[in-house]
């Protein structure tokens, strides 16, 4: 179940997209997502689809892998499509009891489907091509100007990277605690909701105790390694905005411009 979820995963590859400045990729992803909601006709989606395929090619992330990320969302997508299909008013094409399909409904549900698909593809591109660490330092760097108005940019980034570091550890720990309690006869998946919730206590308490102990030890270890907040810190991997980033920016903005021009095209037709 958990291993089906590809959103948020990193897809290792040596492509040019992987090597782009993470700040640029964050900004471009944002533009991509916003653009999805400005598209007014299918021409726009056609160009966006072309752009996405081109990106997949450039990033060396196979389309097949990208589409796999949609799998966990199939139910959500089906419900959205059906709701739009049956609930939109307009020119009735087909009717059966209370159910009716309108021309507008078909268009609407196709639109919604496409939006969800591209939303998922667009956001997963960012995580597929950027390691969590680079992503974090990109966000830190983008948020830095806001630290003057009290946004704790460094702290947010630090918290994110520590969370990333400890997620596998805590998952492993949860497995171990569950096994240990099962070895004492704990019934974790029996009975009604109340019983099940109660059965979680022997799992959650040790997990919290351990997480706090880890946090405590980690804090001391970090201090011992001269951690003193974000001031005067340098980076092993400094973010460098390079020529290829500018080229990527121009190409991408160009493609988005074409997509938005499609709106006019649609209006003209």
């Amino acid at each position, binding site marked *: 179940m958990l291993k089906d979820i590809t959103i948020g995963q990193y897809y290792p590859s040596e492509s040019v997209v992987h090597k782009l400045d993470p700040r640029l990729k964050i900004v471009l992803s944002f533009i991509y997502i916003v653009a999805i909601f400005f598209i007014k006709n299918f021409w726009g989606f056609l160009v966006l689809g072309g752009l996405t395929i081109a990106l997949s090619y450039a990033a060396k992330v196979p389309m097949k892998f990208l589409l796999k990320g949609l799998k966990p969302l199939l139910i959500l997508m089906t419900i959205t499509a059906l709701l739009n299909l049956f609930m939109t008013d307009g020119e009735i094409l087909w009717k059966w009891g209370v159910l009716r399909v309108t021309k507008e409904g078909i268009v609407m549900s196709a639109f919604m489907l496409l939006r969800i698909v591209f939303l998922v593809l667009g956001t997963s591109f960012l995580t597929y091509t950027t390691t969590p660490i680079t992503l974090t330092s990109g966000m830190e760097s983008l948020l830095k100007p806001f630290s003057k108005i009290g946004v704790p940019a460094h702290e947010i980034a630090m918290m994110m990277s520590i969370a990333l570091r400890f997620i596998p550890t805590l998952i492993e720990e949860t497995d171990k605690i569950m096994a240990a309690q*099962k*070895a*004492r006869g*704990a019934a974790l998946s029996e009975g009604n909701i109340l019983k099940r919730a109660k059965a979680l206590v*022997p799992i959650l308490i040790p997990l919290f105790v351990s997480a706090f102990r880890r946090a405590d030890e980690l804090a001391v270890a970090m201090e011992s390694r001269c951690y003193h907040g974000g001031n005067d810190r340098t980076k092993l991997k400094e973010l460098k905005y390079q020529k290829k980033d500018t080229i990527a920016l121009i190409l991408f903005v160009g493609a988005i411009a074409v997509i938005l021009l499609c709106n006019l095209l649609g209006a003209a037709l």
Partner: protein
Amino acid sequence: MNIAVENLSYIYAPETPFEKVALKDINFTIESGEFVGLIGHSGSGKSTLVQHLNGLVKPTSGTIRIGDRVITGKNADTKGLCFTVGLVFQYPEQQLFAETIYQDIAFGPSNMGLSQTEIDLRVKTAMELVGLSPELAGKSPFSVSGGQKRRVAIAGVLAMEPKVLILDEPTAGLDPKGRDEILNSIRKIHKQMDMTVILVSHSMEDVAKYCDKLLVLNEGEVILTGTLAEVFHHADRLSEIGLSVPQVTLAVHKLREKGVDIPENIFTVSDAVSAILQLRG
């Protein structure tokens, strides 16, 4: 209660990129009442193997018999198995959760559906067996020392009165005194409760002192099994996989290589002392 394992194999995460043969064609038997040491490096499959024995992990193939019960295959009889085969995990104090030591130890027995009087009795006996004084019963398990926490956790398994007791590195992280106390308690429990005990350990010195029989695991395979004498006879094989015979046994082997007439089967300091003293008559 005797244990028989036949052709046991376990493949971790089959048909994924993480696929790994964790256990490969394991065969061994343990007789009722034996004290067996299970030795091997981290990642040798020890923990996976012991989790098979109480039904927490199902084998990919092979058969396991605990007493008369077959606990693998289609008609596996695993109901209440964890009460018969008690498993104490590594760093078991990390599983403590209840408000009082009493409640924590009572967790297993209550899951068995025992009566309150029976639970009371079992908690009391278990605390005594591991050397926890009765007045600690009402205290929070998080308020006592590290060594005591570990005893509470072990008592939590003992209170289920299993026929087979498996301990996964019960002395990890303890100081020498804490280590000796825990191991001595386990020896006492083994004798008093007539249990079959499997002690998973890294320390050859410890297993030599407490166990009758050894099982050596390396990369998912049993490479040596038998009595202490049979296993320690293969000192070279052990050192090939980065393990060693106890230091005194090593010294005795060296003496024999130099032609000294001293018995080979010496595994503890006291045996070595008397054997060496006899050399001078």
